[in-house]
């Protein structure tokens, strides 16, 4: 092994030109796949096809129709929707909305199909017709009708009548990613036109399509803002720590090549970028830099110690080949285990980073030393280096105070770790985006003033064709809808029973006493038939009633709910149904909000096994590489505890966390292990090769890798801090938690691992002394 490493180092120096050319060619070939990359703009991308909740939602959508929408929010500055001016704008925008690509249905205050009785006939017509010519009393009447219509209030109009919304249902063919953009671009222009034409109106844009569009935007934004910031930070840190222009330049090339190789290979493999996988570049940059730093620091150290440049390079490769290989392989395993996640974007993230890390390994051991070998580098020979004195003093302190430190660490560890119990899982796809996104502000405004954006949907089965006309069924559905309306945070419930009751009243000469479910199923069915025949294009009930009239759709809208609220509500609703409704009616709640409410838990479950598997595999690799079962076992402690501490600290300081938490262990494990590998391998070398006592070996390990560990931790922390500036919450949470984990890992490696090593080896030392 050692001879191979010596031969390898010399070979790289000798073949430097060949290696540089080959690296450039291979790197460019891989990177050229980058042009095949595309951005996914779909909020459903976080769910695998096997996800049962996604399957349930798709079944519901195939039975009725998919509810993808654009939602215009109109807020007149004078605070009154019911003016000729504003209603004219509503009428015009309703008409214009039919021109939005893939629009299939437009619902607004103006085209609401108002029903009334006139001369014993049923009149079904637009609530607002030709707003410009309405008299004051007609305006009053429209206002009265609208604010007393359960289907309108808190959905199309606020209960105060100061904000109104126009909902456009979009039916994309689903053939290309461009469709969402096409719709989003169109509605933005449309909104701008109306802003110009109606300066008295504030117009906001929200809805599923706009959210989907933001998912694509988030990826692009992270790529174009975080990655350049990352480069800047890394260059500054490298410049400061390496104090070498050539070293910084070479490292810059290595990380750029690693990043482009990872991304390019992703392109070749047809991986599309999602808000999660779009951060692969940032993570690759961070991880790739560590390899370069280890190789470079040794080169400079050897040169300062008086060796020639080529000798220093060969020596650095001899020393670093094994640990760099080991850390790369463990990091790769950690990221590859993300393939067990239920959320495809994390699988992509894991795979892209893994490819980048492997590329970084090869660039660091071939390209970097070869390039260093041809660049002019001068290092003065120095007798003693200042940082080694500092780190030596630090090592002495740890060794001297080891008994006390051990207990201090335990005393700190236990209460911090117990913070895990404070962690609350919360995912909300709207809140994934911070306020820098237009649609997030629009959605917040709508939640404060008009309606909600979290939706639970049900398909309520009657159990027989035509059964939805059965009064017993209708009464039960009405009861269920009323139960929901009484729940906290519920702003609106769409149920077919609202229409049924209103029609029954209309059919009895608008007698309010008949605002109830019809007595016979024949009457219900015939009222409905009459009504359906009176509805215009795009406003039929086929989105609420299935073809054989055996089931209806109920849509519950909520606002300001947490994932826990949603889960609880869904569960209570199921309890209500199983207790009060016939068996056929029982149903799970469906919809994106519910799916996101379960996403963290589901992903944690799928990732837990994968993380344990990765941990076992990594520990096994360490045992083999270190050729010591004991050390491999001891390494578990500093490998596992940082994530536990990070969760605990997060629980105490923040509490709420989403999807990011599920992949944390898998992701940080590979990184955290690196520090342990470097420390333990140096400790072991001192014990085996130099026959040092355990405290001396600890001091040796500190002196050889202490500063490198400190610098790489600094770099990693900086990198993931930058990730935490992402406007996408999953990424910023991931960034922050990783920073905490990495810092914890360094603390564990500096204050706890040495002490444990000394404790474990104390008996061995005693034995060898007595011998």
């Amino acid at each position, binding site marked *: 092994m050692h001879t191979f490493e010596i031969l390898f180092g010399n070979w790289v120096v000798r073949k430097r030109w060949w290696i540089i050319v080959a690296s450039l060619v291979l790197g460019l070939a891989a990177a050229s796949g980058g042009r095949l990359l595309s951005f996914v703009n779909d909020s459903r991308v976080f769910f695998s096809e096997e996800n049962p909740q996604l399957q349930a939602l798709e*079944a519901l*959508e*195939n*039975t*009725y*129709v998919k509810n993808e929408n654009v939602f215009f929010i109109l807020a007149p500055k004078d605070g009154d929707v019911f003016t000729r001016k504003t209603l004219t704008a509503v009428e015009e925008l309703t008409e214009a909305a*039919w*021109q*939005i*690509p*893939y*629009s*299939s249905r437009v619902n607004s205050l103006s085209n609401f199909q108002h029903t009334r009785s006139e001369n*014993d*006939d*049923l*009149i*079904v*017509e637009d609530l607002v017709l030709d707003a410009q010519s309405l008299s004051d009393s007609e305006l009053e009447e429209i206002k009265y009708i609208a604010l007393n219509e359960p289907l309108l209030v808190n959905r199309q109009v606020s209960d105060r009548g100061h904000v109104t919304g126009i909902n456009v249902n979009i*039916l994309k*063919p689903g053939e290309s990613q461009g469709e969402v953009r096409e719709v989003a671009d169109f509605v933005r222009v449309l909104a701008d036109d109306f802003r110009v034409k109606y300066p008295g109106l504030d117009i906001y844009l929200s809805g599923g399509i706009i959210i989907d569009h933001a998912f694509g935007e988030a990826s692009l934004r992270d790529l174009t803002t975080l990655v350049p910031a990352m480069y800047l930070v890394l260059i500054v840190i490298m410049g400061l720590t390496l104090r070498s222009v050539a070293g910084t330049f070479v490292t810059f090339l290595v990380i750029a090549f690693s990043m482009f190789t990872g991304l390019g290979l992703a392109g070749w493999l047809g991986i599309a970028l999602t808000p999660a996988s779009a951060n692969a570049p940032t993570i690759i940059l961070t991880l790739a830099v560590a390899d370069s730093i280890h190789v470079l620091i040794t080169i400079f150290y050897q040169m300062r110690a008086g060796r020639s440049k080529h000798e220093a390079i060969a020596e650095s490769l001899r020393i670093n080949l094994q640990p760099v290989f080991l850390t790369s392989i463990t990091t790769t395993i950690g990221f590859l285990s993300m393939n067990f996640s239920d959320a495809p974007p994390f699988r992509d993230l894991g795979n892209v980073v893994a490819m980048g890390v492997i590329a970084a390994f090869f660039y660091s051991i071939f390209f970097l030393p070869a390039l260093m070998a041809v660049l002019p580098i001068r290092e003065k020979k120095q007798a003693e280096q200042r940082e080694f004195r500092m780190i030596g003093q630090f090592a002495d302190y740890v060794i001297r105070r080891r008994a006390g430190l051990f207990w201090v660490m335990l005393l700190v560890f236990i209460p911090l770790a117990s913070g895990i119990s404070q962690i609350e899982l919360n995912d909300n796809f709207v809140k994934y985006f911070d306020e820098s996104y237009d649609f997030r502000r629009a959605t917040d405004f709508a939640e404060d003033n008009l309606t909600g954006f979290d939706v639970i949907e049900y398909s309520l089965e009657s159990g027989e*064709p*035509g059964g939805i*006309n059965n009064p017993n069924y209708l009464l039960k559905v009405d009861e269920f809808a009323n139960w929901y309306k009484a729940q906290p945070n519920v702003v609106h419930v769409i149920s077919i029973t609202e229409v049924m009751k209103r029609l029954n009243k209309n*059919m009895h000469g608008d007698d309010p006493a008949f605002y109830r479910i019809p007595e*016979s*199923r*024949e*009457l*219900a*069915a*015939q*009222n409905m*038939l*009459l009504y*359906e*025949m*009176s*509805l*215009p*294009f*795009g*406003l*039929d*009930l*086929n989105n609420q*009633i*299935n*073809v*054989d*009239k055996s089931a209806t759709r109920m849509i519950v809208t909520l606002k300001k709910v947490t994932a826990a609220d949603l889960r609880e509500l869904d569960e209570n609703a199921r309890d209500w149904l199983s207790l009060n409704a016939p068996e056929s009616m029982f149903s799970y709640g469906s919809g994106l909000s519910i799916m996101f409410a379960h996403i963290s838990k589901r992903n944690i479950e799928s990732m837990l096994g994968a993380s344990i598997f990765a941990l076992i595999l990594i520990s096994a690799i360490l045992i083999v590489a270190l050729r010591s079962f004991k050390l491999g076992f001891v390494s578990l402690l500093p490998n596992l505890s940082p994530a536990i501490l990070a969760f605990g600290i997060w629980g105490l300081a923040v509490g709420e966390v989403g999807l990011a938490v599920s992949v944390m262990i898998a992701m940080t494990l590979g990184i955290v292990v690196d520090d342990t590998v470097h420390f333990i391998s140096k400790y072991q070398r001192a014990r085996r090769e130099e026959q040092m006592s355990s405290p001396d070996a600890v001091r040796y390990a500190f002196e050889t890798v202490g500063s490198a560990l400190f610098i790489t931790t600094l770099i990693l922390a900086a990198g993931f801090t930058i990730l935490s500036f992402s406007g996408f919450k999953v990424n910023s949470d991931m960034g922050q938690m990783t920073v905490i984990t990495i810092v914890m890992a360094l603390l564990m490696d500096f204050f706890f691992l040495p002490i444990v090593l000394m404790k474990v080896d104390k008996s061995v030392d005693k034995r060898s002394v007595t011998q």
Partner: protein
Amino acid sequence: MKRFLSVCIICLFLSLPAGVLRADTPEEQGLSIALEAERRDDGFGDSTADMKMILKNRHGQESVRLIRIKTLEVKDDGDKSLSVFDTPRDVKGTAFLTFSHKQGDDDQWLYLPALKRVKRINSRNKSGSFMGSEFAYEDISSQESEKYTYKWIKNEPLNGVDCFIIERYPVDLKNSGYTRLLTWIDKDEYRVRKVEYYDRKKSLLKTLTLDGYQQYLGKYWRAHEMHMVNHQNGKSTVLLWTNQQFRQGLSELDFTQNSLKRVR
């Protein structure tokens, strides 16, 4: 030499397509095709038929409705028709009366046996779904030539049958769900073979194909299968016609509001 030249000119003219020779505009050609189709259906008097309507959604669920239809030809105005719903059983006995008009909105009434009342329907909303199907009322109502303007597009065979392709534009654009209907009419018998419906944003919404044409009284062709596919929501509806009969001796008296209550 003179004779040879005139023969050449005659040959040249004969080889030209008929349309070019008549030098009509595409609009006039379209109209004349529509009028010819209408003329060929003149004089059928009255007819009765049973219609089976099969609704399908994207999830593969199906539902069937059975309807009996009587039609009376009216001179100088649109036809009158009366439909009686037999299933679903909740609407059994419900009857739907229509007086279609060449000009202005059609008149429509619905008899509801549960209420024992006849209710007038606001037929401005003709663009809506008919009984939850993918057919709008305007798709199955009497297709009077005055309800559209026309434009001939081209001639092209459809499944081996030579067809005129014309576009129809609804006159009442405000209340129609469509901007244009691309229509295939065969050259032999002027039967509609296929219709593509384009919605308000001019995207393809639905396609109707008509099959199983049979001739009655040696003159009148009726399709016995109509397939309507909605391309946007993935749902479809099939109409199957049976028991088609002509000249049953129906009169105006069979098509009054009072007659609605009597139908079984």
